[in-house]
């Protein structure tokens, strides 16, 4: 296509933020190394140059302090877009997030709301060990009062960022490092797609059928979607037609799309780079089994990170991560298996 305007997720996020800053003076950005450095993962690049360092504000390494300050500013009508470099770092400041940001709307009986975006990087696969490689999707999605999104491609990244900034609620915007298009993290070509220049929203809470299929549904988010798509291409050559659902949002969760897809295929595989137990994968399986058990032709499967701290050694980490081969193997088993009568 001649008119194609392919962007990375990082550039798409920065573009959406810049466009919202141009039309809404209440939008400001703060975080560690987001101004002069442009964000470790590129998603604030160019903002300080255009909007100045009042609106694009480097902070001290004081996460509780600046996330708490953002909550206060948001309750006062501002629209903070806040970055915390790695999702792993939330341990030092989770109180400001789940006790304040997520609860003050409710505790005020709706008098105040907290319109802010908290963006953070997720994911591993590049040997950074367990304090820099987690996803923790489920930890945020578990707690009521905040929305949670994670894009798999640049089109959704821009639309979700625009929607998140305009949303009157706190939105956790989780971007997977492996999809950012930063050379040093490896590049997932499927994430770099055409992005319209004009502003647009991708509805928060709406999943997308990334690939249609008949025999098995693969549900995932962010990087896992690309594993699913790769597996679907392999499975096609083996005569199995896989449908890939890109959740895009975890909260709200588009349960209808999941159920409709499983109603069609009768088989479900959830791919989740977050930890196996007590998380997103279990929730999605419950979404189907609680209400649509009869749609299933085989027991659901999950391909998730084992319940171990993420190791440094490459061979160990790669053994744990979801990948297309694991999905293919699971799909073949499911399509050959039947639920015993």
């Amino acid at each position, binding site marked *: 296509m001649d008119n194609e305007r392919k962007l990375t997720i990082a550039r798409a996020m920065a573009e959406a933020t810049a466009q919202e800053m141009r039309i809404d003076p209440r939008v400001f950005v703060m975080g560690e190394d987001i101004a002069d450095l442009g964000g470790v993962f590129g998603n604030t690049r160019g903002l300080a140059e255009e909007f100045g360092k009042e609106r694009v504000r480097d902070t001290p390494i004081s996460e509780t302090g600046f996330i708490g300050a953002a909550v*206060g500013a*948001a309750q006062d009508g501002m629209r903070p877009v806040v970055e915390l470099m790695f999702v792993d770092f939330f341990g030092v400041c989770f109180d*400001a997030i789940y006790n304040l940001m997520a609860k*003050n*709307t409710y505790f*005020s009986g709706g008098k105040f709301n907290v319109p802010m975006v908290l963006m953070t990087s997720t994911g591993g696969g590049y040997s950074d060990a367990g304090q820099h490689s987690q996803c923790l999707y489920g930890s945020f999605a578990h707690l009521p*009062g905040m929305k949670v999104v994670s894009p798999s491609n640049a089109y959704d990244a821009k639309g979700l960022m625009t929607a998140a900034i305009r949303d009157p609620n706190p939105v956790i915007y989780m971007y997977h490092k492996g999809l950012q298009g930063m050379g040093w993290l490896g590049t997932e070509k499927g994430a770099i797609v055409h992005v319209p220049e004009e502003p647009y929203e991708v509805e928060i809470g709406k999943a997308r059928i990334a690939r249609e299929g008949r025999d098995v549904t693969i549900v995932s988010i962010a990087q896992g979607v690309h594993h699913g798509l790769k597996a679907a291409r392999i499975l096609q050559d083996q005569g199995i037609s896989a449908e890939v659902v890109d959740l895009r949002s975890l909260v709200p969760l588009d349960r209808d799309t999941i159920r409709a897809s499983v109603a069609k295929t009768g088989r479900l595989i959830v791919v989740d780079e977050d930890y196996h137990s007590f998380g997103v994968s279990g929730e999605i399986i419950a979404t189907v089994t609680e209400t649509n058990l009869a749609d299933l032709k085989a027991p659901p499967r999950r391909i998730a990170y084992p319940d171990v701290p993420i190791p440094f050694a490459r061979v160990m980490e790669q053994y744990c991560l979801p990948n297309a081969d694991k999905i293919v193997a699971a799909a073949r088993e499911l399509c050959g298996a039947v639920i015993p009568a």
Partner: protein
Amino acid sequence: MATKKAPERPNVSKEELLKFYREMLLIRRFEEKAGQLYGMGLIGGFCHLYIGQEAVVVGLEAATKEGDKRITSYRDHGHMLACGMDPKGVMAELTGRIGGYSKGKGGSMHMFSKERHFYGGHGIVGAQVPLGAGLAFADKYLGNDNVTFAYFGDGAANQGQVYETYNMAELWNLPVIFVIENNQYAMGTSVKRSTKSPSLWERGAAYGIKGEAVDGMDVLAVKAAAEKAVATCRAGEGPYILEMMTYRYRGHSMSDPAKYRTREEVEKMKSEKDAIEHVRDLLLQGGLASDEELKAIDKDIKAIVNEAAEFSKESPEPPVEELWTDIYA
């Protein structure tokens, strides 16, 4: 905090003294009533009473203007009354009723008022302090001259996030007044047992923040210090720290038997330093008000508090459908 002061003749009008008397008495009677309702089982959870500390919020509020903001922790009833929130709405929140400020969803520790610029009521020690800096940041960003009062206690003064906030507030020159309500006990732990250097406001010096300690039992001293701090912040030279030396007469919460201090200590404070008695003495011994005038005020306040208590009992319980509203805006 040694001997009882002889009533001096400070530069303060009769009207202002009567206003202080009235506002402090409202808080005290309200809190006494809350204690009664708690004892009757009408208020659940913990309930942190402000009795003894009334001069702090009343003196500080006397230095505010419309638009100024306040945020505090869970010992918040006094702050809400002092900034003009409706006692009925506060008491009904304590009893968990639909007529409460948060429709019964927040309770004693979580109330808010947009009209009175009161940003809560927060249940985690020290967590409101960064939010206060954010409120001040918004005002600075918007270019107005509003000031935020971020209250916290001597216990919270040992929370790391307070110092993260000090640094940011000074770095960004924010119009925030950090009010340390040093009532000398973090639950049952006295400042002496938790803190080697007992002067909490002086810690601000490490960040370049101005501050001072104030006799928080003397509403006139509080107001004078507040005016200085407010002027500093409005002039764009904030932040500022005010350490209010005060004392809570009751336990940390209703469940506190207060075994960590002597009865004599409490009685000494009550008889020598009580903030309301101090103003009462100024009014009576200065010949500014008669006993009858003060009794009339007492009667008024009693009526307001009784009305609030009645409202808090009559207001309906929240319907279960309310459970699912206000989670998201």
